């Protein structure tokens, strides 16, 4: 395998992210007090004088705060720039949109690459275990810092949806509307299993060095690359893979087998293989292995019902938040059945909930892609919620 990476990520932060430093730190669920806390974030649009038009967008496992602008690390457009911007479904002419790098991440927010105050060294694999609640608590500190009392909406897909749900559960009075997309109120056994395979791939890399790879000037690029390749399959669907690649074989000069040479098992490469290798190798250039382990573990721990006496309705009882749950028909990582469980719990809690399953054959990643029905759903839900929010403001 030819997964390789430039070592730049092992050298520490190269880019300056917009960051707030909170010396008071954060009390983690595991008992560790993390201080100082740094949260890297991007904002779009203008906060209204009443400070009531803020939308927090929560990113997924390997996303970052570069929501709607060029990502300085990859040079690519923001991961949701087709959704967030002037006149777009999440309209920055009207809303103040905030997106922050999650706690434990590697794009400027406190994480395994940050310096531990006690040791003066980077945390690396000693970074404390975190939960979705910790991730959201860190975001809440940023929202406090920005002077926002109540978020008009919290929106997120996949792990971002877990954060949206956690916001609604932990801070019901601070969330007017919540949109959990392609997500689940708990991480399923199958998803934990996939994460475990990803982690074992990282551990098996000779460059892993028990998580202190940076001390050796190395990164577990092969392991992290394989982890990404495997995970990427779960983000797609059989139909999407068939449509995109089928059984096509690459016939370029680099992989062509000279007629004279002896037959080889891997003399030619299926396009899907080539695609996955590319996904793996580009990922290791931008993501830290310890962050990957920290955040996947936080997802595994996520189970809102278990934390509330086994009843998923409990955290949402008396909730005034308007919910819009969205799933995608071909998403087998976070299938519609899990969204339906969530919707039923929200109904048991008497919450105001909309629920749409978008017809798409593109699997879990559909929430990042062009899906007109999805765009309409987001725009409509936000517009409808805004109408209600204004109505309530008028009553006060």
């Amino acid at each position, binding site marked *: 395998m030819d997964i390789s990476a430039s070592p730049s990520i092992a050298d520490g932060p190269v880019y300056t992210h917009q960051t707030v430093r909170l010396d008071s730190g954060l009390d983690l669920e595991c008992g560790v007090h993390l201080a100082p806390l740094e949260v890297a974030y991007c904002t779009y649009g203008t906060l209204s004088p009443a400070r009531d038009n803020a939308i927090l967008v929560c990113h997924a496992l390997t996303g970052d705060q570069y929501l709607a602008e060029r990502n300085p690390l990859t040079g690519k457009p923001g991961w949701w720039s087709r959704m967030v911007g002037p006149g777009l479904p999440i309209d920055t002419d009207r809303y103040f949109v905030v997106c922050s790098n999650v706690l434990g991440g590697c794009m400027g927010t406190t994480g395994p690459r940050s310096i531990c105050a006690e040791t003066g060294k980077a945390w690396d694999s000693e970074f404390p275990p975190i939960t979705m609640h910790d991730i959201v608590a860190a975001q809440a500190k940023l929202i406090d810092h920005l002077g926002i009392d109540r978020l008009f909406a919290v929106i997120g897909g996949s792990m971002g949806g877990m954060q949206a749900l956690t916001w609604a559960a932990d801070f019901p009075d601070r969330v007017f509307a919540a949109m959990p997309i392609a997500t689940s109120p708990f991480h399923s056994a199958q998803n934990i299993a996939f994460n475990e395979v990803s982690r074992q791939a990282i551990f098996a890399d000779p460059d892993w060095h028990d998580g202190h790879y940076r001390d050796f000037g190395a990164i577990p690029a092969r392991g992290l690359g394989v982890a990404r390749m495997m995970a990427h399959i779960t983000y797609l669907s059989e139909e999407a893979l068939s449509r995109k690649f089928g059984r096509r074989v690459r016939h370029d000069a680099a992989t062509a087998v000279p007629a004279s040479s002896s037959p080889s098992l891997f003399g030619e490469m299926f396009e899907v293989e080539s695609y996955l290798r590319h996904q793996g190798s580009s990922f290791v250039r931008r993501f830290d292995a310890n962050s990957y382990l920290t955040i996947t573990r936080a997802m595994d721990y996520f189970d809102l019902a278990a934390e509330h006496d086994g009843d998923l309705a409990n955290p949402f009882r008396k909730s005034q938040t308007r919910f819009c749950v969205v799933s995608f028909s071909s998403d087998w990582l976070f299938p519609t059945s899990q969204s339906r469980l969530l919707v039923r719990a929200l109904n048991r809690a*008497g919450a105001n909930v*909309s629920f*749409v*399953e978008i017809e798409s054959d593109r699997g879990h990643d559909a929430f990042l892609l062009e899906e007109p*029905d999805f765009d309409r759903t987001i725009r*409509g839900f936000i517009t409808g919620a805004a109408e209600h929010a204004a109505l309530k403001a008028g009553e006060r």
Partner: protein
Amino acid sequence: MRVDQRLIAEMIAPRARVLDVGSGDGTLIDYLYRTRSCDARGIEIDMQNVTQSVAHGLPVMHGDADHDLADYPDDTFDYVVLQRTLQAVERPREVLRQMLRIGRHAIVSFPNFGHWRLRLQLLTTGRMPMTPVWNTPWYSTPNIHPCTIRDFLLLCEEEGYVIQQWLAIDEDGARAPWRRSIRLANLFGEQAMFLLKRAGH
């Protein structure tokens, strides 16, 4: 908005909490929200309708009468509405029970199988009747539990529901003149609409 939807809207008090089961394109809940300041929500089985409704900012969830009412707590709503759907659900009696558990009132409309044209067709042709209201052949109709106005009255009696208001309506949804006599309504009313509540409330 259909005439019968307007009749339903007239039964609903302003600012009430309403669940429209089978909300279609969301016309009724939109109307109730805009003109009566109701907290009106919908359940709809057709995903295109759901998407269209949510895209219009309406709180609608994908689901159906048979499976998704049981989740709501008692007395979540002031009114639970079921338009022209009772005959198509799997368990009409259970659906009614759920409606009057989660809502203080139920508003139910259904096509009347006792209409004279149906009776006459069955009598004269010996075949399943086909009319503008009952317009799908027996092998493909979604209407698996047809009933007459009298049948419905009997069920309400058995279940102990109080009929606060009833009216016969014609095919287009306009109110029909058979207000006094159930017998005449059952013969000449193409559809019926009932406003129910639980006994003892």
